[in-house]
């Protein structure tokens, strides 16, 4: 049987030659993301904004206009309705109710009373202002702590330049993911944070593989210029990088197409994160080492000491 090889043996792609363009591209993506986040903000889901989300299934195709008129008559502020997957499924979003959390509960009761029992309530979520504030806080906190923990781990396993390089690549992925959600105004909720944290871990994963090989090659080829060495290491691990990204992407694509609308946003974030994470471990994480002037001394010394110790 002939096995498929996505990357033929002996592939030599000059990744480092275009590293400045890649860096420019990444900088632009990150800047655009940051600007979008500040200017445009996010389409926060009710987890973070507070409010009410109700998914109903009507008998027969839903009369969205009719439902909208009915619900707007309740005086609950902004009410959004949209179709959701099927013609008889409707997603209703109601803004966070002013005043106490009790107002929020009353609003849910009002909607239930208005829509009656003829519709199937598939999902009712109501998050008060207090909890939504806490969820934002803990989401931000967790992302920062995760990044820090990952950086410390890499630092502990490699030279500090690797730690910083891996962190920059990961932060780059996180920022671009957040940017994606801001630019396209995709709904940003708790599952998005889950996707971001997973991608943070996953992206470092790719980076670590390249770094591991780089460290090995630093000892093996002592006189090779750093840039050439990085190119060699990336090329040697390219097959693995592509294969692993492919299997993970296959799984997440299955989730995106067949996992149902509830985790659509999550799988979309994952797809983006995997693609971008793969890119960043090649074009961001490794070139960083050149910029940080990774000294070869440490590795060379180590090797020499070993030689002198065993004459």
């Amino acid at each position, binding site marked *: 049987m002939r096995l498929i090889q996505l990357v033929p043996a002996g592939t030599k792609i000059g990744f480092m030659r275009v590293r400045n363009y890649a860096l420019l591209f990444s900088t632009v993506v990150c800047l655009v993301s940051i600007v979008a986040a500040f200017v445009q903000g996010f389409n926060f889901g009710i987890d973070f904004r507070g409010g009410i989300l109700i998914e109903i299934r009507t008998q027969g195709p839903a009369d969205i206009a009719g439902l909208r008129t009915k619900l707007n008559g309740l005086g609950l502020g902004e009410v959004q309705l949209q179709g959701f997957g099927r013609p008889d499924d409707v997603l209703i979003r109601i803004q966070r109710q002013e005043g106490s959390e009790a107002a929020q509960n009353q609003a849910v*009761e009002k909607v239930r009373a208005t829509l009656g029992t003829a519709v199937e*309530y598939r999902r009712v979520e109501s998050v008060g202002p207090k909890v939504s504030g806490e969820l934002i806080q803990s989401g931000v906190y967790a992302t920062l702590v995760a990044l820090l923990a990952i950086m410390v781990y890499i630092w502990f*396993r490699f030279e500090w330049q690797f730690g910083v390089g891996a962190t920059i690549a990961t932060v780059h992925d996180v920022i671009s993911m957040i940017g994606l959600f801001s630019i396209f105004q995709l709904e940003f909720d*708790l599952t998005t944070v889950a996707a971001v*944290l997973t991608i943070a871990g996953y992206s470092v994963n790719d980076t670590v*593989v390249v770094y*591991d090989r780089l460290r090995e090659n630093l000892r093996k080829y002592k006189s090779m210029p750093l840039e050439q060495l990085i190119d060699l290491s990336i090329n040697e691990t390219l097959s693995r990088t592509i294969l692993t990204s492919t299997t993970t992407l296959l799984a997440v694509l299955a989730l995106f197409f067949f996992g149902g609308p509830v985790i659509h946003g999550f799988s979309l974030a994952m797809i983006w994160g995997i693609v971008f994470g793969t890119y960043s471990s090649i074009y961001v994480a490794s070139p960083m080492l050149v910029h940080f002037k990774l000294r070869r001394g440490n590795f060379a010394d180590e090797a020499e000491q070993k030689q002198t110790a065993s004459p």
Partner: protein
Amino acid sequence: MMYIARWKLILSLLVTVVSFIFTAPNFLDRKTADSLPAWIPHQQVNLGLDLRGGAYLLIEVKVEDAIKDNLNSIVDSVRTALTGRTARIGYTNLGRIQNGVTVTIRNPDEVARAVQLLRDSEKGLSIDSEGQRITLKLTEETLRERRRALVEQAREIVRRRIDEQGLREADIQAQGASRILVQLPGIGDPEEIKRLIGKPAKMTFHLLNEAVSPQELATGRAPPATEFLPSDTDKLPDGRPVVYPVRTRVMVSGENLIDAQPTIEQGRPVVSFRFDTVGARRFADVTRRNVGKPFAIVLDKKVISAPVIREPILGGNGIISGNFTTESARELSVLLRSGALPAPLTFVEERTVGPGLGADSIRAGSIACAIAMIAVVAFMWLAYGLFGTFANLALVVNIAMIVGLLSLLQATLTLPGIAGIVLTIGMAVDANVLIYERMREEQRAGRTPISAMDAGFTRAFSTIFDTHITPLIGGVMLYFVGSGPVRGFAVTLAIGIITSLFSATMLTRLMAVYWMRRTRPKRLPL
């Protein structure tokens, strides 16, 4: 390399077999699984509310409100203490402050006496005086203890109220300092239960102030020690509720109730109740002295019944005959039996999933799992042939380990949790990819099959270890921030990462070594 320690072999086979044994009950239907004898593993994966349908309610106990009430009663008792017959101390500016009460004594000479008096009457408070001003503060310790007790008490009452509804699978737990998390599987519309849980259910018996004229009642301004309270059900012809002039002094309170049951009397639903000894004695005293006078039974500031005392009630048993339906009589007895909430409750977060969406999510999740599995298995086979098959077999064991562990630990599987499993399917083979790519390289560099395989497994390991640690860090963080479903994702992701470390390295290696020993290939088929 070709040698594998016997204990490793035995351990690997054991783990594999045990995983399948613990996974097996999930293929049975629930009843069959439950009927298995205890020594056979029979636990199934615990499905989260988003998959089986149900209500998730996060309730906040408004502890500070209760503490404010508590301070108000301290204000009252300070007033009583200072104006008492023996004390007669003049004061001004008596009122509540943050976590305490303050009062100013008019005559500086009486401050010391006042402090002594208050020390005797108010225990558990720190009492300081500064000039003529005396402050009574709840100590940090008292506050902490009181908060804890309030939440605990509220949780117990919520539990009783839910138990009374016959919801056996309900899960009620304290969360954080002042919250209660209630999970009700199978409940699609929690409004009824929320109403029941949220009712303060403070019941008190009062005499009516008969001196109040209908004109006074109409003005709405109540004379001292009297409160105008609306009837729960009775309405005036114009639709407004009937109002009663209720004396604020409590005759007997619901705390002294020991039982309440709905019954039928003269064809109408009523609630019969029984007092404890203290309550019975007090009730007997008051009814004996007030025969012929009306009294009011007040529930949460509403009069549910205002009968006339026909004869002294001495046995401590009584009947409340308001305008009940069978259902409302039952509900009132449930509330009275479970007791009054020590502090108000608010619902700060609610997530309800209907059974329809839950079933759809399970179906979608399973399909996504199956398709991811097929795609990854096919891909690995195409890329690595026989070695791909080893990886695929290990992947199957890996899934069994995840499901088996979830069943064993009774961790909750949620929809994001299924996503975590799907993701594991994609990432678990990463270790194999790393190993196989390394083997290819080493073979290309001219090594013999045995030495290439050896290099593949040993050299890739440190990389594999690193690549597993970092996602694990993300997963652990997620576990701590995530609530409900997202936490489920963290759990399956973390379990999947750990199990894949075992299956992708140990198991594949085992298979590869046995295959090598039998076939002695000239080249690795990679």
